[in-house]
């Protein structure tokens, strides 16, 4: 027993006397993700508000265009994607703002965990509370627009691949404008042009499914954009956060 205890202590000591390397990347990521998710849960309504905006806006189009089912079915993919885009856009503000205002952002910059890892974690939390609920709500809208059944799986796949990119690119816009005067108006101007490729291929995937054309190229492109955004966006956003905090 004593041997085991001292052996344990001996093993623990080198770790203790090593210079604190700080929590590992994964630990830091998980901690940040958990924190943001807990905060989101405490604030409750956020995901619900995003979905509400999504559904409400999508509901406006029939009022504007008329309820004719063929028309609605034709515009369904576009409407779903554009309103999803706008919903994500609206929610970007809160990504960094509260942390900026209460000083947590400064602390994040100073921790040994690389800032881009923390930003990635925050973006992941953002997607889980924004993009993911939208993926769930999208088929409901598609239903109301009488979109034919064969397109639903593709719609889900495309949104699952596309909405994380929306959060990632959006995080760059949010970081650039945090604390700016009238920053809320600025974010759409910065971010929407960058969203256009995702929009184009997201809709193209669904349209292809409806037309019986190959869907994979579009999904692959969406996937490629996501893979490109995953390392690049947090890095750019981290740079922008540092500007904000300096």
């Amino acid at each position, binding site marked *: 027993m004593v041997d085991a205890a001292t052996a344990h202590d001996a093993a623990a000591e080198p770790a203790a006397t090593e210079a604190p390397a700080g929590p590992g990347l994964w630990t830091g990521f998980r901690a940040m993700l958990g924190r943001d998710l807990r905060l989101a849960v405490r604030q409750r309504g956020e995901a619900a508000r995003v979905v509400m905006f999504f559904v409400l806006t999508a509901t406006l189009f029939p009022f504007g265009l008329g309820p004719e089912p063929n028309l609605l079915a034709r515009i369904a993919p576009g409407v779903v994607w554009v309103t999803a885009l706008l919903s994500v856009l609206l929610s970007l503000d809160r990504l960094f703002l509260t942390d900026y205002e209460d000083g947590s952002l400064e602390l994040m910059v100073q921790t040994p965990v690389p800032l881009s890892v923390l930003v990635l974690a925050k973006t992941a939390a953002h997607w889980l509370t924004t993009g993911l609920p939208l993926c769930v709500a999208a088929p409901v809208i598609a239903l109301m627009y009488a979109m034919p059944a064969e397109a639903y799986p593709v719609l889900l796949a495309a949104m699952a691949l596309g909405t994380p990119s929306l959060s990632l690119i959006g995080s760059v816009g949010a970081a650039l404008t945090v604390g*700016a*005067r009238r920053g809320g108006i*600025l974010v759409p*101007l*910065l971010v929407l*042009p960058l969203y256009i490729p995702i929009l*184009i291929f997201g809709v*193209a995937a669904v349209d292809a499914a409806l037309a019986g054309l190959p869907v994979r190229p579009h999904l692959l492109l969406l996937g490629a954009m996501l893979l490109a955004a995953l390392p690049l966006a947090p890095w*750019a956003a981290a740079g922008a956060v540092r500007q904000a905090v300096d």
Partner: protein
Amino acid sequence: MSSETATDTHTRPAGGRRSLHRFANPGRFQRLADAVIPWTGALTVVCLAAGLVMALWLSPADYQQGESVRIMYVHVPAAWLSLFVYTTIAVASAVALVWRHPLADLAARAASPVGAAFTFLALVTGSLWGKPMWGTWWVWDARLTSVLVLFFLYLGHMAIANAFEDTGRGRRAAAILALVGFVNVPIIKFSVDWWNTLHQPASVSRVGTPAIDASMLWPLLVMALGFTLFFVTLLLVRMKSDLMGARLRNLRLMQVQRGEGG
């Protein structure tokens, strides 16, 4: 009195801080710009004058498009310049972020409104060129739509550079945005091209440059050169102006610190 005569060499900043490159040596740039601007200005006038003569007189009308093809000689150079200026801004932003050279920041900020203006011109002249051809003022063809998105990227860049009271942050944020936007331009172009082929029926033609024959290529190149020289001249003027503005701010700050009146 070495300090009195040392106006052309890098005088060591007070306090002997690290290399002067961190800070603009405004005197040097001003003198350089003053030397260069008359030349680029003169060349601009020559090129534009020659280009106009070639575009409006010497070059032939198009077989299909008639005289309206002459709009190409302002539309294409404007579109070319909108891309060129954006590339300049991206390069300057990269230099500003990586090497922290303050003149680079300055160049990017000074260039942006000029680029936006040319993008706007590209859009409007594109519409004017297209209306007699397609019958509508706007078509969602690949090139015009891409230029429209580029216009939004410019507006965003200008907006963010001015959104902060602490203008240092605004310029650095603008630099990041410029780079992010630049990386996205080919992606956007590719997406819009693809989107366009999907939705446009084959019969609707793009605002095509006609098969370029030498008699049309030369006016185009000369006009493009003239526009580019115009941009360079204007950029130098604006950079001079911005540097003076920075110095004015400095002076006023020093005045306030000394408690002097305005």
